[in-house]
C-alpha cells in the first residue's frame, strides 16, 4: 500500500515535470505502400507530455482509420526525464490510389501540435492469396479457446492460424518443394512468444526455419492480423498419399480472473492507463494447426535410372569444366573445378563423376553450396577435385557426368562436360613444372601470399638440419626441478621478511632473540677457550653466558648483573652458590691472575650448564 502511494506521488512529479517541458509530435506510416486488402499502421508520437487530448483524425476518402491503442513512455536519460504518448491507428484502404494523410492535430495542454502530411500508396489487390496455382490452407479456428472473463473489448474469438502455400500437390519422394508458410496472429491479442512452426505427420521434412520471418499486416474479413511468413521448402520422405499440415504453439498474455485487490485509489484511478501497471496478467499456452492438404507423393521411376544418379531432383545446369593446368608431369596433381547450378535438392547433388579413370589417381571431391534463396532451394554448388595423371599416356581429362531427375518432364537427365586436353610430361621433368617455389629451394623467389590457397604441393626441401631434439620439456623431471628453485628463493625471502617485520613490531621479541643469540655466541666462545685451554677467555665467556641468561630472565641489563642481585632472587641456595662461585673464580682469573688448570676448565663446563638450566627452571 505504502509503495503504491509513493508510486502515485512519483507519477505526479513526473507529470508535472513533463508538462513543463517542450512538446512535439511526430507521425509515421508503416509501410508507406500497401496492396488493397492489406493495412498500414499509423504511429503518432507526442513527446514531452504526460497527457493530451486524443488525436483528431481527418476524414480521407478511400481510407478508414481504426484506433488500436496507446502507450505511455517515461525515461530518465542522463538525469533528464523524457516521456510521451504514442497513439496507434490501423489504416485500411477501400480503394487503390495515391493518398495523402493531411495534418493531424493534437491538443497538449495549451499547445496545439500538428503533424506533417504523409503519403500512402495503395496498389491493386495483393496477389499473395489469389495466386491461381497456389493451394492455400486458410486460417482456421485455433485449437485453443479464447480466454474467458476478460474485460478487453478488442479481444477476438480467433487467436491465429497457419497457412501453407504449395506450388503443386503431386510430387516425388525426395523432391524439394518451395513452400510459403504463413502464420496469422490476431493483432488485438497480447502475445508473449511463439514457437517455430513444424510439420504435422512423419511423411515430410521441412528446411530449417529462420528466426526472422518476413513480417506484414493483412485484413481478412475485416479483422487485422499480424502475418509472419517463412519462405521455406518441404520434401516427402515416403511415397503414397499423405496429409500435409503445420502446427505451432503460442503463449498469450491474458487478464487474470478477478479484479486487483480493492484499494482507496480504485475510484480515483480507474483508468486503462493504470491497468498497465496494476492489472495482473497470466500466460496461456495455445496450439494452432493448419488445415491439412492431401498430397500425392510419387516414387522415382526405376526405369532409365543412370548408374551415377545420387538422388538429385530438380532442374540443373552443369558449367564447363575448369582444369588448373593444361600441362602436368605424371604424378603431379591437377585440380578440376565444376559448378552445378539451378533449383532442387542440393543436399543430394554430388560431384560429377569422371567417365574414365584409367591412368588417373583421384581424390574425393569437396563441394560447397551457395544458396540464392533463404530456403536453400536455388543456388549453385561448386566442386573441387584433385586428380593425378599417373602416365604420359593420359591425353585429356575425360568428360564428367552428372545425372538428376527432372520432375517437370518426369525423366532422368544426364549432363556432360567436354573433355579437356592435358599434356602429361614424364616424371623426370617434374622440376621444370611451374610449381610454387619453396623458399628453401629457391631463395630468390618471392614468398607466397599469406592467404593464397595452394594449387599444388610445395616442392621438396633441399637442405636439412643436422640434428633436432625431440625432447618434450614437460616430460623432463629436471625442467620441473629448475622451476622449483625460484619458488624456494621466494619462500626463503618471504620467511626472512616476515621474521624481520615481526621483530620490528615487537621490541621484547627482538630483545629475546638478540639475547638468545648472545648466549649462543658466548657459549661457543667458552667451548673454544676450553678446547684451547685458555682460562682467561674461558671464564670471560662463561661469566658473559651466565650474565646474558640472567639478564634475559630477570629483565635487566646483562652487563650490570652483580652478585648482590643474585642474592635478592628467590632461587635455591644451591643455584645461588654456584653462580657466586663462578663469578668469584672468574673475577680471580680475570683480575688477580689466578691460574686454573686445564682439568679445572673441563669441570667448570657442567657447572655453567647447571646454572643455565637452573635459571631456566627457577626463572
Amino acid at each position, binding site marked *: 500500500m505504502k509503495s503504491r502511494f509513493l508510486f502515485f506521488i512519483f507519477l505526479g512529479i513526473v507529470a508535472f515535470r513533463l508538462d513543463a517541458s517542450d512538446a512535439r509530435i511526430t507521425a509515421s506510416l508503416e509501410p508507406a505502400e500497401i496492396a488493397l486488402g492489406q493495412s498500414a499502421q499509423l504511429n503518432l508520437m507526442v513527446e514531452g507530455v504526460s497527457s493530451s487530448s486524443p488525436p483528431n483524425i481527418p476524414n480521407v476518402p478511400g481510407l478508414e482509420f481504426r484506433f488500436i491503442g496507446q502507450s505511455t513512455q517515461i525515461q530518465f536519460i542522463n538525469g533528464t526525464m523524457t516521456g510521451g504518448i504514442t497513439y496507434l491507428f490501423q489504416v485500411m484502404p477501400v480503394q487503390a490510389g495515391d493518398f495523402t494523410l493531411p495534418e493531424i492535430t493534437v491538443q497538449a495542454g495549451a499547445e496545439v501540435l500538428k503533424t506533417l502530411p504523409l503519403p500512402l500508396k495503395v496498389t491493386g489487390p495483393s496477389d499473395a492469396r489469389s495466386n491461381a496455382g497456389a493451394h492455400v490452407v486458410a486460417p482456421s479456428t485455433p485449437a485453443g479457446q479464447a480466454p474467458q472473463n476478460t474485460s478487453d473489448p478488442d479481444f477476438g474469438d480467433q487467436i491465429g492460424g497457419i497457412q501453407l502455400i504449395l506450388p503443386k500437390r503431386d510430387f516425388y519422394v525426395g523432391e524439394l518443394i518451395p513452400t510459403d508458410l504463413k502464420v496469422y496472429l490476431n493483432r488485438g491479442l497480447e502475445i508473449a512468444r511463439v514457437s517455430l512452426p513444424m510439420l504435422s505427420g512423419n511423411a515430410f521434412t521441412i528446411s530449417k526455419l529462420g528466426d526472422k520471418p518476413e513480417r506484414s499486416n493483412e485484413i481478412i474479413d475485416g479483422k487485422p492480423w499480424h502475418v509472419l511468413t517463412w519462405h521455406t521448402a518441404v520434401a516427402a520422405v515416403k511415397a503414397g498419399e499423405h496429409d500435409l499440415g503445420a502446427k505451432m504453439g503460442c503463449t498469450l498474455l491474458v487478464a487474470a480472473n478477478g479484479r486487483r485487490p480493492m484499494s482507496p485509489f480504485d475510484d480515483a484511478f480507474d483508468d486503462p492507463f493504470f491497468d498497465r501497471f496494476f492489472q495482473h496478467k497470466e500466460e496461456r499456452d495455445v496450439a494452432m494447426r493448419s488445415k491439412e492438404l492431401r498430397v500425392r507423393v510419387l516414387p522415382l521411376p526405376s526405369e532409365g535410372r543412370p548408374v551415377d544418379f545420387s538422388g538429385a531432383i530438380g532442374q540443373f545446369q552443369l558449367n564447363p569444366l575448369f582444369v588448373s593446368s593444361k600441362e602436368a608431369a605424371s604424378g603431379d596433381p591437377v585440380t578440376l573445378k565444376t559448378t552445378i547450378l539451378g533449383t532442387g535438392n542440393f543436399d543430394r547433388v554430388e560431384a560429377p563423376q569422371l567417365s574414365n579413370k584409367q591412368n588417373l589417381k583421384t581424390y574425393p571431391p569437396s563441394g560447397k553450396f551457395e544458396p540464392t534463396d533463404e530456403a536453400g532451394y536455388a543456388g549453385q554448388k561448386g566442386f573441387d577435385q584433385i586428380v593425378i595423371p599417373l602416365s604420359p599416356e593420359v591425353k585429356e581429362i575425360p568428360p564428367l557426368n552428372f545425372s538428376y531427375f527432372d520432375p517437370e518432364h518426369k525423366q532422368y537427365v544426364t549432363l556432360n562436360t567436354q573433355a579437356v586436353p592435358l599434356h602429361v610430361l614424364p616424371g623426370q621433368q617434374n622440376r621444370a613444372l611451374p610449381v610454387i617455389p619453396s623458399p628453401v629451394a629457391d631463395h630468390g623467389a618471392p614468398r607466397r601470399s599469406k592467404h593464397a590457397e595452394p594449387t599444388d604441393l610445395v616442392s621438396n*626441401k633441399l637442405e636439412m638440419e643436422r640434428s633436432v631434439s625431440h625432447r618434450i620439456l614437460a616430460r623432463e623431471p629436471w625442467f620441473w626441478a629448475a622451476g622449483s628453485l625460484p619458488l624456494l628463493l621466494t619462500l626463503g625471502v618471504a620467511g626472512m621478511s616476515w621474521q624481520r617485520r615481526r621483530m620490528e613490531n615487537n621490541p621484547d621479541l627482538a630483545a629475546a632473540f638478540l639475547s638468545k643469540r648472545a648466549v649462543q655466541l658466548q657459549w661457543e666462545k667458552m667451548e673454544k677457550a676450553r678446547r684451547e685451554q685458555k682460562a682467561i677467555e674461558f671464564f670471560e665467556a662463561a661469566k658473559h653466558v651466565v650474565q646474558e641468561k640472567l639478564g634475559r630472565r630477570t629483565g635487566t641489563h646483562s652487563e650490570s648483573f652483580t652478585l648482590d642481585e643474585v642474592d635478592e632472587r628467590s632461587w635455591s641456595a644451591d643455584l645461588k652458590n654456584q653462580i657466586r662461585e663462578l663469578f668469584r673464580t672468574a673475577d680471580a682469573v680475570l683480575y688477580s691472575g689466578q691460574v686454573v688448570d686445564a682439568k679445572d676448565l673441563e669441570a667448570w663446563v657442567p657447572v655453567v650448564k647447571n646454572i643455565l638450566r637452573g635459571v631456566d627452571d627457577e626463572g
Partner: protein
Amino acid sequence: MKVEVFLLSCGLCAGAMAQNADELFSRGNAAYSSSKYVEAIQAFQSLASEGHATPEVLFNLGNAQFRSGDAGHAILQYERALWMSPRDPDVKANLQFARRAGGVEDADERGWQKVARTLTLNGWMWLALSAWVLVNLFAALFFWSRNRRRWGFLMTVSVGLLAFCVAGAWERSVDLKTGIVTALDASLKVAPIENSPSLEPVTAGMRVRTKKSMGAFVYVETADGKRGWMTPAQFELIIPPK
C-alpha cells in the same frame, strides 16, 4: 693420448654419420624428382628412424607419400613437421593442400588457437619458465622491499605473462593426444569389440583426439565432435609416446 684417440674417433664417426644422412637425404630427393616415390619414401623413412626426423625430412617424406597416393600418411608427416616447425609456410601450404585433396575438412581454428600454434610446446614451456622466474623474483622483491607498489605491479604483469604462456602450452599440449587417421577404410565403432556396428566412416588424414583405451581399442573424438572406438592400427599419434 688414449682420450685424444677416442675423441678423434668419435668425431670421425659423427662426421661419417652426418655425411651418410646427407647422402640419404639427397638420394631421397633424387628418387622423388624421378617420380620413384617408393624409393624416396624408403630413404626418408630410414633417415627419420635413424634419429634424423627433422622437419625437412618429414616434409619431404610427406610429399613422397602424397605423390604415391597416401594422403593420410602425408598429412601425418606434415603435422609432425609442423609440430617442430610451426611457422613454416611450406609445411602449412602442403598440409592445407593435402587436406583438401584428401577431402578432409580444415580444422576450424579459433583466434587463440592460431596464436598458440605460432610456437612449439617447448617454446611455450621455456617462455613460461622465464615468466615463472620473473614472478618469483618480483615476489621476493615485493616481500623484502619497503616500497611494495612497484614490485607488486611488476609481479602482477609477470603473473599475466605466465598465465598467457601456460595457456599457450596447454593449447599446444592437445597435440600430444592427437592422432591422424591413416587407414583408408576406418570407421568409428559403437563399442570396443570387433563385431560392433560402425557409427561413422572417418577419412584418412582426419584428426582424432584420443580419450581412453580399452583392450585393443581407443576411444576417440573427431574434430567435428563425433566419438567412437578405433583400433590403434587405424591412426597414428602425431607425437609418438616415449
